[in-house]
């Protein structure tokens, strides 16, 4: 060997494979403003559509007059429900088995609901047209409070469902009831509560909020009359699902629908569902024969497409005096707004909320969820979390703190006492899940040591004493959160969307010179797939990540996949990538054996190629194998080197983490300061530590926003009062706390590379950490639970109600 021969470390480093803090390749175009988003796509003759929206939360639509609007220069058409009825599209199916009005059909059911679609030569003309459409409404009493939805005298919202006693998920108890979903053993759980030495019960609300990605929802539809083909550029987290939905409802053959999701400026669940804007733009393009673009503005985004949360959770825990939990009972009142448009796997009306037993060994549990209609926008999307998992994590993490308070125990100690132990995995939870792997106590203890938990508690005790002596007006809270997520939907045995199993896919094609292209059924919205996917391939087949191009989002070229949300990309598509790469490697091994004139079994893999066992000098690099694949394959073998894999995961993955927030609150103004936030994440195998850290920072910032003020609020009359970033709390770098991140690694035993997914963990674990910090701060003054969001004035109100101003 001469000195120029690279070392094994150098050969590994050059690949920039798994574990490497590889810089994000997509950032080169993003940071220079050179990305291509939907609104950057401009076609000749393109028209623009925009909505007339309802000012009323609940009203009968008596008439719509478009005469004056059609006189506005540039306005070409005004589409109403009547127009859509001619193509049977006035209503559309939702992912949750309900139907939703595309345009107001006789009635409006929430403020800012889509009433008519004005199509014009530019956006200015469209908006001028909107102002000239005259709609006559007859206001009806609005139903705003979900707790009143099932009152006997509550107004009937969904007249289209009148008399229907069964919905998509079973019996309906009331005209505003959508479903009841129950899981667990009721009798056993009731018995546990009868025998309990200690119980707690609290109604814990997780307020309505919104994913509010930087780029709003938008699409550009272009129908080619001659070919009968529809091309849709759109902000889609799941492009293939959109194609299938369009095929099913527009009756266009699926091969003639081309869905392209270009660069996407954030999704967070907002871009999973199908919205009236997509349907209207498609119909408008079919009607006019011109491309039609629809771009939501911020107000429309916040008030019409896809809220998140709005779960009102009554949690009860039964426990022994020593703090061992013996039972969990949860009832959820779920406010779904006017239509049930939750983007959950079809058979899961409350998503995976039955992960609500969290990280604790509950011998028994029972859960019931009632979904109701109200006069609010539809949605119920998974805002940076797996389906309803953040609600569940918030519920159990608040409830555990409340139990600790009742027992007079430290909340960290209570958690340590009840954790599922490492030897219990795979663990079967009382509500039906099989947790794959975890080492909770190690993660918890690492967190406690890293922040000097005992020292912080001591400081808090001193500060409380000083507060009682009148020496300070500041109180201090420690928010502990230990979450277990359930991500990677999902195994076909329990997950589908509209009947399509929730597998995902990857296709890899290697080119002769040792480069390649890989395509997936997922779609990055900023997660950095182009970077990380190439890293998995680099490690698996020994080709530098820089030589692998990753492409997503074009349904004509990408293999069918279910898209990116619910932290499913790494658990599902990540596995498909490894499996496809392994198929490539298997064929490569046969080619190498042929070229090296040995038996396949005499070869072993070594970083970037094969070597003959016992003869380390006899090697063939993957690069050379690629070349050989195109000119000298073994007799009888097809040339080329490509593979495709569709991966149906055997189980979900269960990332977990230990977070703590240290907060100080000025009781006089309610102003809080996050002194410290430490987040330890265990997402199994870590593909790119830098991207993980970035994901954690982003998710924590959203968690901070949600817990401390970000809400979609309706007044008593049903007006939405948080329609812009002035009032919808969107923190800037100034408000966002400093984040400290840490990790442990407990690989998933069933995943090909052991990875579990991380993008959503910080939102799931972060919200309870912030809320627990606020609640912990106030607890010594006698409160047990203060509802989110914890913005300044509400903190002041809490202080006032606890009597600190006397």
């Amino acid at each position, binding site marked *: 060997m001469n000195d120029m021969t690279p070392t094994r470390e150098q050969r590994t480093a050059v690949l920039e494979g798994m574990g490497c803090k590889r810089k994000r390749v997509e950032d080169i175009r993003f940071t220079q403003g050179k990305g291509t988003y939907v609104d950057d796509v401009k076609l000749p003759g393109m028209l623009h559509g925009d909505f007339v929206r309802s000012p009323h939360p609940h009203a009968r639509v008596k008439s719509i007059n478009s005469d004056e609007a059609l006189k506005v220069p540039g306005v070409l058409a005004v589409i109403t429900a009547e127009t859509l009825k001619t193509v049977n599209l006035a209503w559309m199916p939702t992912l949750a088995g309900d139907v939703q009005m595309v345009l107001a059909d006789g009635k409006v059911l929430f403020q800012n609901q889509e009433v008519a679609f004005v199509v014009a030569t530019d956006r200015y003309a469209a908006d001028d047209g909107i102002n000239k459409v005259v709609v006559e409404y007859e206001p009806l009493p609005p139903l705003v409070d979900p707790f009143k939805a099932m009152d006997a005298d509550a107004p009937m919202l969904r007249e289209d469902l009148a008399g229907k006693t069964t919905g998509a998920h079973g019996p309906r108890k009331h005209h505003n009831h959508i479903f009841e979903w129950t899981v667990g053993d009721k009798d056993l759980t009731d018995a546990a509560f009868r025998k309990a030495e200690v119980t707690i019960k609290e109604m814990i609300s997780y307020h309505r909020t919104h994913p509010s990605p930087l780029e709003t929802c938008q699409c550009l539809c272009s129908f080619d009359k001659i070919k009968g083909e529809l091309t849709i550029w759109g902000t889609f987290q799941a492009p293939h699902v959109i194609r299938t939905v369009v095929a099913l409802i527009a009756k266009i053959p699926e091969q003639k629908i081309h869905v392209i999701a270009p660069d996407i400026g954030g999704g967070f669940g907002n871009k999973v569902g199908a919205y009236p804007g997509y349907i209207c733009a498609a119909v408008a393009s079919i009607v006019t024969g011109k491309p039609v673009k629809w771009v939501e503005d*911020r107000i429309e985004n916040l008030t019409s497409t896809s809220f998140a949360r709005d779960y009102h959770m009554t949690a009860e825990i039964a426990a022994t005096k020593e703090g061992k939990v013996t039972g969990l009972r949860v009832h959820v009142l779920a406010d779904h707004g006017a239509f049930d448009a939750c983007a959950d796997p079809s058979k899961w009306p409350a998503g995976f909320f039955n992960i609500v037993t969290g990280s604790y060994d509950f011998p028994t549990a029972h859960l019931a969820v009632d979904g109701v209609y109200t006069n609010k926008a539809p949605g119920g999307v998974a805002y940076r979390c797996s389906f309803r998992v953040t609600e569940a994590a918030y519920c159990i993490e608040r409830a555990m703190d409340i139990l600790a308070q009742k027992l007079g125990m430290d909340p960290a100690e209570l958690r340590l006492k009840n954790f599922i132990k490492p030897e219990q995995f795979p663990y079967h939870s009382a509500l039906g899940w099989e947790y794959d792997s975890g080492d909770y106590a190690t993660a918890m203890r690492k967190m406690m040591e890293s922040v000097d938990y005992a020292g912080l508690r001591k400081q808090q005790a001193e500060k409380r004493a000083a507060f009682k002596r009148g020496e300070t007006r500041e109180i201090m809270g420690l928010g502990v959160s230990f979450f277990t997520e359930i991500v990677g939907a999902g195994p076909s045995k329990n997950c589908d969307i509209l009947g399509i199993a929730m597998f995902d896919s990857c296709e890899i094609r290697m080119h002769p010179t040792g480069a390649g292209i890989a395509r997936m059924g997922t779609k990055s919205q900023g997660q950095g797939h182009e970077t990380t996917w190439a890293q998995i391939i680099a490690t698996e087949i020994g080709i530098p990540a820089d030589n692998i191009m990753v492409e997503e989002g074009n349904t004509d070229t990408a293999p069918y996949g279910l898209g990116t949300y619910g932290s499913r990309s790494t658990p599902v598509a990540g596995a498909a990538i490894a499996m496809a790469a392994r198929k490539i490697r298997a064929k490569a091994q046969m080619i190498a054996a042929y070229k090296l004139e040995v038996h396949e079994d005499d070869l072993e893999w070594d970083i970037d190629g094969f070597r003959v066992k016992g003869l380390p000098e006899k090697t063939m690099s993957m690069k050379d194998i690629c070349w050989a694949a195109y000119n000298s394959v073994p007799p009888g073998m097809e040339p080329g080197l490509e593979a495709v894999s569709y991966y149906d995961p055997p189980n979900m993955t269960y990332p977990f983490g230990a977070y703590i927030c240290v907060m100080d609150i000025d009781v006089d103004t309610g102003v809080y300061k996050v002194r410290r936030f430490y987040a330890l994440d265990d997402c199994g195998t870590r593909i790119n530590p830098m991207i993980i850290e970035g994901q954690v920072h982003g998710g924590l910032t959203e968690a901070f926003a949600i817990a401390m003020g970000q809400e979609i609020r309706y007044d008593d009359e049903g007006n939405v009062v948080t329609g812009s970033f002035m009032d919808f*709390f969107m923190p800037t770098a100034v408000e966002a706390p400093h984040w400290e991140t840490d990790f442990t690694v407990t690989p998933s035993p069933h995943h090909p590379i052991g990875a579990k997914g991380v993008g959503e963990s910080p939102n799931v674990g972060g919200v309870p950490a912030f809320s627990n910090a606020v609640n912990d701060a106030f607890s010594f003054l006698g409160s047990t639970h203060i509802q989110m969001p914890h913005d300044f*004035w509400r903190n002041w109100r809490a202080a006032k109600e606890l009597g600190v101003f006397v």
Partner: protein
Amino acid sequence: MIPGPFNYHRPATVADAVKLLASLGDDARPLAGGHSLVPMMKLRLATPEHLVDLHGVEGLKGIRRDGNRIVIGAMTTQHELLASDEIARSAPILHEAALLIADPQVRYRGTIGGNVANGDPGNDMPALMMTLGASYRLEGSSGARDVAASEFYQGAYFTALEPGELLTSISIPAPAAGHGYAYEKLKRKVGDYATAAAAVVLTMASGKVATCTIGLTNLAETPLSAEDAARAVIGTGLDAATLKKAAAAAEAIMSPAADARGPVEYRKHVGGIMVTRALTRAFARASS
């Protein structure tokens, strides 16, 4: 969020601008930085048929000293205010307050003239101008007049500006050397208008407050001058009881609206706290 149609004019002199405004009547609005007006137009809450852009008008910019007064041209941006040594030296409270307005992008465009002429109770500069005893020069087709800031604000978006009049400059008597000052603003985040804010300018003599003015932002339909509160501290060493009295006197004149920043009671309560904090800080800064 798309404005309606409008015509755009760009006059070169104050005379031309005034003439345009007079001839176009009620349907015309001056356009300064556009950071209050354009958002309203995007929501179609304002639908002017004519915009008279003041950016081409000569002589509306700049900060100069005129004897013991500071004169600021209406089209001077918040950023220029922040960059000015004259302001930092003679009226540092303006510097402190300008830094609390919106964010750098807005401050590069937004003007002091637009801020004080707008009449939005959320704007920070008006209460400051009242606290400093400033006056505004208004020019219309019938000539120029000076109106004291304390006389200018009549209601939300309702000011002493007559149709066709332009606000061309602001004149501020330079506060006494060694004065104490502070602007305390509680807001939910960067870029937010005040939940409550208080401006204090005071002077001291032999350890006691000699003169004091207090202004309040976003605590009523117009900026307020808290005169009783100011009187309560004059002649005192600002002991705890006095601070409490001053805060109570200020709270008594507040009538904020309930909004997402909080209910009325909260906004008054923190309004009182802003007064207390501004007084305390101004007092500590002043030299006797």
